């Protein structure tokens, strides 16, 4: 039994067509012209209980739109979603009891008063039993360090503290499902690490199902067993991390710093380099690991100029996705 089921979900937004310039703006006021923007297009997937799923894709892919539908605050144009047997946008309040939500750029804490007052409100709003409340608070103060700032008004918290407090209030009632929309946005390395560990712990110990959107490669690498990739509203990939990397991630990037020279790197293209940039000092070279390796490129370079420094970068998920998308795009063009 899947805990989340999404079937042929499509969401379109209507946008008033804007015209350019001052008079255009006035015309816009009286015009009835709309353009339709399809944010999510015919997306289907399901999530099992206890999974951590990374829901990723470039900016504007439709991630937040999908999450909003799943939490019940957006009604789909067509298709349907079911969460724990409930249709979220039809039974929003019933659904709300089963879920916890963190939108990275928003807070559900009361802005002007101490964190503890928001916590108390949640306690009563979700009718949390005393025993559960105390147990959860103990965990949260241990792992998230809530105690440090529990009596501080929210507007005086740093972003990292606020995010920890937000995670705390969204999990107080031990929800079955946790939706995280960019939970690590704008946080420093240590806090990110902290939050990742916390998410892992929650998933392991409470069996919470987690759906996570992020642009942070490390988030995905450290948290997600499974990835769902979406772009321009279309589902691109649904499967585990390993096979995605194996399929599209045979790319590496090499950065080489040289003494000033005017070597033409075009010669590398024949050897399996797919892309390069060189300004006479710094070279950025991308290549397929199954055709050439870093040593090969370095040797080639050293024969032609003095190499001062170099570094090798594993391909990151953004690049994997970009590559994957490019391939899918080309394939669909060829079909035509």
């Amino acid at each position, binding site marked *: 039994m899947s805990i989340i089921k999404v079937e042929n979900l499509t969401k379109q937004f209507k946008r008033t067509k804007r015209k350019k310039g001052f008079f255009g703006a006035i015309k816009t006021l009286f015009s009835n012209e709309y353009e339709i923007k399809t944010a999510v297009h015919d997306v289907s997937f399901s999530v099992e209980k206890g999974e951590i799923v990374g829901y990723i894709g470039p900016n504007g892919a439709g991630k937040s739109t999908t999450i909003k539908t799943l939490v019940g*605050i*957006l009604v789909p144009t067509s298709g349907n979603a079911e969460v724990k047997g409930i249709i979220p946008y039809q039974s929003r309040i019933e659904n*709300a009891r089963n879920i916890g939500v963190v939108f990275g750029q*928003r807070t559900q804490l009361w802005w002007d*008063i101490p964190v503890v*007052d928001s916590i108390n409100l949640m306690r009563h709003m979700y009718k949390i039993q005393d025993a559960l409340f105390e147990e959860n608070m103990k965990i949260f103060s241990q792992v998230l360090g809530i105690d440090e700032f529990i009596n501080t008004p929210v507007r005086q918290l740093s972003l990292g503290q606020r995010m920890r407090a937000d995670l705390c209030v969204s999990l107080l009632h031990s929800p079955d499902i946790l939706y995280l929309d960019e939970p690590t946005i704008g946080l420093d390395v240590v806090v990110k690490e902290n939050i990742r560990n916390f998410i892992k712990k929650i998933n392991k110990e409470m069996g919470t199902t987690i759906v996570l959107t992020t642009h942070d490669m490390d988030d995905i690498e450290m948290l997600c067993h499974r990835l769902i990739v979406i772009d321009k509203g279309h589902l691109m990939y649904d499967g585990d991390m390993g096979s995605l990397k194996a399929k599209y991630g045979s790319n590496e990037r090499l950065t080489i710093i040289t003494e000033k020279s005017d070597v033409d790197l075009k010669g590398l293209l024949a050897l399996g380099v797919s892309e390069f940039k060189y300004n006479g000092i710094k070279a950025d070279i991308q290549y397929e690991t199954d055709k050439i390796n870093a040593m090969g490129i370095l040797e080639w370079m050293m024969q032609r100029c003095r190499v001062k420094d170099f570094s090798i970068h594993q391909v990151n998920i953004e690049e994997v996705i970009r590559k994957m998308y490019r391939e899918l795009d080309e394939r669909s063009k060829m079909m035509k």
Partner: protein
Amino acid sequence: MKAYIEIIRNSFLTGITYRVNTLLRIFGAVVSLLVQISLWYVLFQSKPDATSHIGAIKLSEMVTYTIVSTLTHIIISNQVIMRLDNKIKTGQIAMDLIKPMSLKAILGSEMIGTTLYNVIFRSLPILLIGIFLFSFQFSGWLNLAFFIIALFNAAVIFFELSYIVGLTGFWYTTVWHMGRVLDNAIRVFGGSFIPLWFFPESLYHISMFLPFRFIYYTPILIYIGKVDMKGVIEIILQQWVWIAILIIIEKVIWKFGIKKLVIQGG
């Protein structure tokens, strides 16, 4: 139930964090009260009383009307439209809609918290000024009791009206200007500055078909003692009818609006 009390408490505490704001608003209310009363003094100067739809009006009654109207304004005022406008525009409304509680219950509880705060910190200075500076009339416990009931209904009517206007933001995204229209309609047809008893015949008739007069004019009539027992009961019953009508309208608007709502941002 406890959740409501927590929200009321939180919004009361939020009010307290903005003390300077409170002081300024008290100051504003006092100035506005003084201006209005001076105006009535000037207008009444030569005459002992003025004629109206409901008989002669004495200056002291007019002064009392103005003070009670100012107090009413402080007590029933809510920021429902501004709040909704903001929540919809920024998409922050998402954070209310993910809670296992209706948006109306959340907004309503927030309003009660603010009202409590206003009653304690803002209406007291006005009451004191009214009693010590002007001949503010106490018109008996019975009138006061009925006035309080009518005032409560008035607050509900005003809340429902604001909520309905706020919900249209589900279609138009921004609604504060509609809030202005509502404010002005209430200012004119509710009789918050000029009692309906001084209205020209035509305006007076129009106002009879609108809910606005039940917010200021009729509750104040009860306080001043311008209506008899039968009139009081009628007013309260009519208020209830209006509340029922507004709730129905609100439910219909919600039903269609929630499907239209587009959460901004993300």
